């Protein structure tokens, strides 16, 4: 057998076996939980392990065959109800599948699996078989003369000839035909060889007519995706050229190319999608083993397994998710005794949920355990000098709980070998942020903890802000963008200042460290003080400002991998080709922060993060960032958290769809809501050329444009919302920047605009 064929067969074996073993595990767990048809689970598991045994045996991997055989034997006793379904047996079988999995991985990396490593397991499986066999003696003749009772007797030894014919079996060729073909041999030889050649080439071309799915290598799909990326870029260039020097006869075909490319891109992206199930399928096993080990009772439920994510994203969230689940069982969920005392059912609930929300995927891990005690966290954080007492005073419970994502804060009273391994929640956060996601925890003491991870659907195409610096253009992923500030040398509040030769900006009463991009990149003659912009970015929980020359546009960019020479710089995350055919580098914000030694303020210290609406409405005051606008004579405030973008459009571009005013916005139709209508004010009339200011935000999951008259300012205030009347659409009044303003109630505006109940 040639090497390629051998390699191909081994690869098939590994992929097939690993999939089979996952199904095997799932079957075992279902069996243990007594869910579904037990015989069906057993049949499936039996077939899986049987296939592993058969295939590996045929390829000459006797050790794998032996381990699989031992498992199969035990399983068949289970199937024939000779051995009862109990924890030791299931554990034994799961260990068997672990061992097989391990051997497959070794095979994959070119090692030869050895049996010594699994001698214990073989003994264990044998012992389990023996326990049942005593009773089985007469009842069943299954093992009579069969291979494997001592596991070293392989099936090959017991059937030396390897094949046979049944007596009086129907067909079978007779001796005559053999003789006949022998006689004719010389005559037909030439013709036959030719025929054989024809047929074998035919067979190679497509022997399987009836398959509806094929296996494709991931690398192949990646290559395809790359080519589609190239095609998209070429298409963008063609579109731009066509716009400039339009030859009428070309417009039609170009439009078609445009549409087909878009569709092609969408479809190729789809092939890279995998369901969350790929990661979650490992969890029932993990939860079982952990809860057994820790003596806890945990019921796992999973919702939304069919939610799809790009495989690169799936790859990246595997470890963070596993860590969170471990943490939850280890630290979050109490032992049955404590739960009884707390008046909770002994069986704890661990719930995994996945769903789409606003172009992102949300993954939620919730337990009904003891919850996180904010007082304890805060004490610990202060002990370790992570939070000053002044900061502590300003923090709400929610902010405190989110301190668990800080490096060096492990709250478990004692470090266990399950989750306390120095890999903390800070690693979870940095892993999630690496793929442009966010992670947040909410917890109620005594009731449980929920961790929410939000991640983008794909990493291949990301929305980015294009900026100019020196003679180059660069892209900054929107995910790390916080805000844009225009510098104004005449306004002391908008001017770069210097502390120890380090540039800083005073932003809403806080100092923001600045990073001079032009200097870093070696561009000269760039004025830091005049007419520049500061792009406030955030990475690894650090916030800092990048000084750039100009802010150009936002664009959906196709991320291209970088040559390793450039990658090693640690300043760029990739490259992209812009619509005009020019290359732009994508800035690696986290890398820049490290290179520039940016010691920014760590996120959880700023109480401005993550303020929920109900917290605003309560009596307590919270620091919050507000976007202040004017509508007629009213000053109207919006939580800046909710605002995606602010746009200026011409009144003429507003169109109608039914009773609603809409705007074509980034290739989609965006409903518009006039805040003046919500407030019962008369509309300000104007003509089509007038500029209209639109605040883009999410209302009930729909991207919506709120039309206001003027943008006034952004404040960060400790606000106290007070309610006087019961005006619709207004949550209450507050004082910001020394003046009274009305705080919009976005939820009620969604209601008012009839956007509720849409998805």
């Amino acid at each position, binding site marked *: 057998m040639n090497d390629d064929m051998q390699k191909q*067969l081994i690869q098939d074996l590994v992929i097939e076996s690993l999939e089979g073993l996952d199904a095997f595990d799932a079957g075992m767990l279902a069996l243990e939980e007594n869910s579904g048809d037990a015989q069906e689970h057993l049949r499936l598991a039996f077939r899986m392990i049987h296939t592993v045994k058969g295939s590996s045996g045929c390829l000459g991997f006797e050790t794998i065959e032996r381990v699989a055989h031992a498992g199969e034997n035990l399983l068949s006793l289970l199937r024939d109800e000779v051995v009862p379904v109990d924890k030791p047996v299931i554990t034994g079988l799961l260990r068997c599948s672990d061992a097989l999995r391990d051997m497959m991985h070794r095979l994959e990396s070119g090692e030869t699996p050895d049996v010594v490593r699994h001698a214990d397991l073989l003994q264990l499986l044998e012992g389990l078989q023996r326990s049942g066999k005593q009773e089985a003696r007469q009842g069943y003749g299954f093992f009579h003369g069969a291979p494997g009772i001592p596991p070293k007797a392989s099936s090959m030894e017991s059937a030396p000839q390897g094949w046979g014919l049944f007596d009086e079996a129907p067909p079978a060729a007779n001796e005559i035909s053999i003789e006949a073909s022998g006689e004719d041999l010389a005559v037909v030889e030439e013709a036959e060889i030719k025929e054989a050649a024809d*047929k074998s080439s035919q067979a190679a071309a497509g022997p399987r007519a009836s398959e509806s799915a094929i296996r494709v290598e991931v690398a192949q799909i990646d290559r395809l995706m790359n080519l589609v990326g190239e095609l998209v870029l070429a298409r963008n260039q063609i579109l731009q050229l066509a716009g400039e020097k339009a030859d009428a006869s070309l417009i039609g075909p170009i439009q078609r190319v445009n549409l087909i490319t878009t569709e092609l891109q969408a479809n190729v992206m789809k092939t890279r999608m995998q369901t969350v199930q790929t990661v979650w399928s490992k969890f029932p096993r993990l939860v079982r083993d952990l809860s057994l080990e820790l003596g806890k009772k945990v019921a796992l439920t999973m919702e939304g397994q069919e939610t799809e994510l790009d495989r690169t994203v799936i790859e990246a969230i595997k470890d963070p998710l596993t860590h969170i689940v471990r943490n939850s069982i280890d630290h979050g969920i109490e032992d049955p005794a404590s739960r009884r005392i707390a008046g909770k059912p002994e069986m704890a609930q661990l719930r995994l949920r996945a769903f789409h929300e606003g172009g992102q995927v949300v993954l939620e891990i919730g337990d009904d355990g003891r919850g996180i005690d904010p007082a304890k966290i805060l004490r610990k954080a202060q002990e370790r000098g992570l939070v000053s007492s002044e900061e502590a005073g300003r923090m709400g419970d929610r902010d405190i709980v989110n301190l668990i994502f800080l490096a060096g804060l492990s709250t478990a009273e004692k470090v266990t070998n399950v989750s306390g391994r120095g890999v903390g929640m800070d690693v979870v956060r940095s892993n999630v942020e690496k793929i442009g996601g966010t992670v947040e925890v909410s917890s109620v003491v005594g009731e449980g903890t929920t961790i929410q991870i939000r991640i983008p659907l794909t990493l291949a195409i990301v929305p980015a802000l294009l900026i100019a610096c020196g003679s180059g253009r660069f892209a900054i992923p929107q995910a790390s963008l916080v805000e844009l500030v225009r510098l104004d040398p005449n306004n002391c509040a908008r001017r770069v200042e210097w502390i120890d030769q380090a540039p800083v900006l005073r932003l809403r009463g806080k100092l923001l460290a600045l990073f001079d991009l032009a200097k870093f990149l070696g561009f000269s003659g760039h004025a830091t003080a005049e007419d520049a912009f500061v792009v406030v970015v955030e990475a690894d929980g650090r916030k800092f400002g990048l000084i750039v020359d100009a802010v150009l546009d936002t664009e959906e960019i196709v991320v291209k991998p970088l040559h390793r020479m450039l990658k090693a710089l640690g300043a760029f995350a990739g490259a992209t080709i812009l619509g005009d055919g020019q290359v732009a580098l994508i800035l690696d914000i986290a890398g820049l922060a490290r290179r520039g030694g940016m010691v920014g303020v760590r996120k959880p210290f700023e109480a401005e993060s993550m303020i929920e609406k109900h917290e605003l409405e309560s009596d307590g005051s919270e620091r919050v960032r507000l976007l202040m606008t004017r509508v007629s004579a009213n000053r109207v405030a919006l939580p800046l958290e909710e605002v995606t973008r602010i746009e200026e459009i011409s009144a003429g571009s507003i169109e109608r769809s039914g009773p609603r005013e809409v705007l074509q916005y980034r290739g989609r139709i965006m409903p518009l809501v006039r805040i003046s209508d919500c407030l019962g004010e008369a509309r300000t009339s104007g003509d089509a050329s007038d500029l209209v200011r639109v605040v883009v935000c999410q209302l009930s999951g729909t991207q919506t444009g709120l039309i206001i008259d003027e943008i006034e300012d952004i404040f960060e205030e400790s606000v106290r919302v007070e309610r006087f009347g019961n005006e619709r659409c207004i949550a209450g009044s507050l004082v910001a920047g020394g003046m009274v303003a009305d705080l919009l109630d976005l939820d009620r505006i969604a209601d008012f605009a009839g956007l509720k109940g849409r998805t």
Partner: protein
Amino acid sequence: MTKRIITVDDAATMRRLVGYTLRGAGHEVLEAEDGEDALRVLSQQSVDLVITDVNMPKMDGIELVRQLRALRDFKTIPILLLTTESDPEKKRQGKQAGATGWITKPFQPDQLIAAVSKVTGS
């Protein structure tokens, strides 16, 4: 003489291995993943020999034999069971269903080729 043979197995590794061995011996090899799949393929193409696995999802090898024997075109075509088990019960069932014989997994390539030549008379 070249024979057309179908190998029925849910494991791609096994199909490939059987295919490789028999193609190397000059035969033409079709493949199917399980009993149902095999019936579909065989409704469109005729073969000189069926080699089938026993344990398969959807329709197992024994049932496949039974169903094939019920078809006029397959009354006399040799059918071999490719099985890991020297389990007499499975063999008995296979024989009862009308299988011609069996080949034990794992097989040696020359064993397989010998069995095939014998049973197809090539």
